[in-house]
């Protein structure tokens, strides 16, 4: 099995790099508007975050092939601008909840790559103690509320977190990631209705990667305009290019403001594409989608897009790009080494955490 995504993240853009531009903090001309007020340092962090997810998950694919990771394993490759863009906008005390395609979001949220890889390897040091696996990453330190495996079932849970924020008169937000195929499940609708009815500070993010397993959205969804569903629940909504990390960040500014100040939910559709199969057991292309379609979409690799913009702005040399990339690879390798050397959970732990013996 090939483990490197067939996408050269360090490929040079066709145009020559523009003169080095230090942007607002330098003496050069203003940075392009599309940088959306970010500093060069932040842009590097965004690039690093996205590359880390990419390199980490490439290693996941490799580990899966070697049998070190088992069960269902859903890779996020191709969608990294969304996780990175969203997480770069929220606060540590905000909440995040997601479905089973959760590695990228967990990494972008700042959960230790070692603890994530150890979880995937089924080890005691895993972020969920080896009891959750790929689909169920939980981390109370970063308010990362899982990792849920039943399509749509975490959406009402997100509304409940929003309810708790309101109950305590807090000003956090709860961000809930949802696949586009989950918009057809009842739980999604029940949650949106309550979130709007009760003014809950929840940001529902639909990651529209155009497929739910092998079913294209056109074959599953009578009205593909997701925003109609926002309107149906008297909720603000917008659609953005989920491959553009700056577009993701910009629309999050509005949604976060709405949640913190007006206590209103938002539904955002982020258009994206998954570059790998639905899970590790699914072919990348050739069944329900063509190789041409895949290749066409891989031209809009979110990492490539960010890299090119920074390169064109003259703020990133190839050497620097390699350095960031090597760092990401080293972190992924370190996570692998750590996980591989970690002990399995002791057998006594089979019986712990079924119940807690505490009470109030």
């Amino acid at each position, binding site marked *: 099995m090939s483990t490197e995504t067939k996408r050269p993240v360090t490929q040079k853009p066709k145009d020559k790099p523009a003169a080095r531009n230090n942007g607002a903090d330098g003496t050069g001309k203003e940075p392009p508007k599309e940088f959306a007020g970010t500093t060069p340092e932040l842009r590097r962090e965004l690039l690093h975050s996205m590359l880390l997810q990419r390199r980490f998950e490439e290693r996941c694919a490799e580990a899966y092939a070697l049998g070190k990771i088992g069960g269902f394993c859903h890779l996020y490759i191709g969608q990294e601008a969304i996780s990175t863009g969203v997480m770069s906008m929220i606060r540590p005390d905000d909440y995040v*909840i997601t479905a089973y395609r959760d590695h990228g979001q967990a990494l972008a949220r700042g959960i230790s790559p070692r603890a994530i890889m150890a979880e995937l390897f089924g080890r005691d040091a895993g972020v969920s103690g080896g009891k959750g696996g790929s689909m169920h990453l939980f981390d109370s330190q970063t308010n990362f509320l899982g990792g849920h495996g039943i399509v749509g079932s975490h959406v*009402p849970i997100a509304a*409940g977190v929003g*309810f708790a924020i309101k109950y305590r008169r807090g000003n956090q937000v709860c961000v809930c990631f949802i696949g586009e195929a989950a918009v057809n499940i009842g739980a999604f609708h*029940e949650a949106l209705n*309550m979130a709007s009815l009760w003014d809950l500070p929840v940001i529902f993010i639909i990651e529209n990667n155009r497929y739910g397993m092998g079913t294209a959205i056109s074959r599953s969804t009578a009205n593909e305009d997701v925003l109609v569903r926002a309107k149906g629940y008297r909720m603000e909504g917008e659609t953005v290019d989920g491959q553009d990390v700056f577009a993701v960040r910009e629309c999050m500014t509005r949604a976060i403001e709405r949640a913190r100040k007006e206590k209103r939910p938002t539904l955002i559709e982020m258009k994206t594409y998954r570059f790998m199969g639905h899970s590790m057991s699914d072919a990348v292309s050739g069944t329900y989608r063509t190789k041409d379609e895949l290749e066409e979409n891989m031209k809009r690799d979110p990492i490539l897009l960010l890299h090119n913009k920074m390169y064109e702005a003259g703020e990133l040399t190839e050497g620097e790009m390699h350095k960031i990339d090597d760092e990401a690879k080293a972190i992924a390798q370190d996570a692998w080494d750590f996980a591989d050397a970690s002990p399995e959970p002791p057998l006594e732990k089979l019986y712990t955490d079924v119940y807690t013996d505490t009470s109030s």
Partner: protein
Amino acid sequence: MAVLTYRDALTQALREELQRDDRVFLMGEEVAQYNGAYKVSKGLLDEFGPMRIVDTPITELGFAGVGVGAAMVGLRPIVEFMTWNFALLALDEVVNAAAKILYMSGGQYKMPMVFRGPNGAALQLSAQHSQAWESWLAHIPGLKVCTPGTPADAKGLLKSAIRDDNPVVFLEGEMLYNVKGEVPEGEHIVPIGVAELKREGDHCSVITHGKMVLVAMKVADDLAKEGINIDVVDLRTVRPIDVDAISRSVQKTNRAVVLEEGWEICGMGSQVVDFIQRECFDDLDAPVLRVHQEDVPMPYAKNLERAAKPDAGKTIAAIKKVMYLD
């Protein structure tokens, strides 16, 4: 001691726990302005306001999930289902979320919440509204399941359930709401997982829970007149099950009848009989018999409904059979 209805005992427990801990809130259909479909939450909206006594849309899956989310981040929700028949729509959140999240998260996220509402048959409500769900729910590791049969147990168990940091399923009896009994005031706690010997006798054990406790007590009265004295073991909670209490009784009487409201196949009684054959094999003088609903959906017609339900007559017949008196 005050004599209260089962309903008022529940209301008292809710009120006391809402007063005790401001993280506790009640949500469900018609719980606030309407005072509860069965008036269990009567007066609570006035006392605690709409943020803590929350009317929901008819959206069982949705509000069960809202409860799960709120519990994950530290509130203590009490989710009321108008009846457990409607909770089938919410089972994903109960079984896949509430019962699993502590385990899946490696112990990071507790689920201090209660799912409560009436369970089992009332009168002539027919097939969709007359079902006892405890064996479904007791099957699930991660849940605790309470089935109080008296007003005092209703109060004491509900207080324990609300204070427990695990998800507790609380099955009330629709036909019990008006039943009266003595209820201790204030801090009356019944621990989850502890049965009570509600009647003592040497001839046969009747092991039961929930609404059938009343039936068993009537059976005990009727049989006492004939000189037959039975143990009535009220399990009170069906997960965990108090196996010791079952064994103690059966080791004394050497005969047992298991009485429940649900159906036969994979019912609670199947589990109780399994415990008995393992723990009391050498003590038994007769095979254990079970009394349960007939293996049919609940019919509407009065005579058919009566025939379908477990009752005192069927229980007495079973007891006489295990005593070889028939």
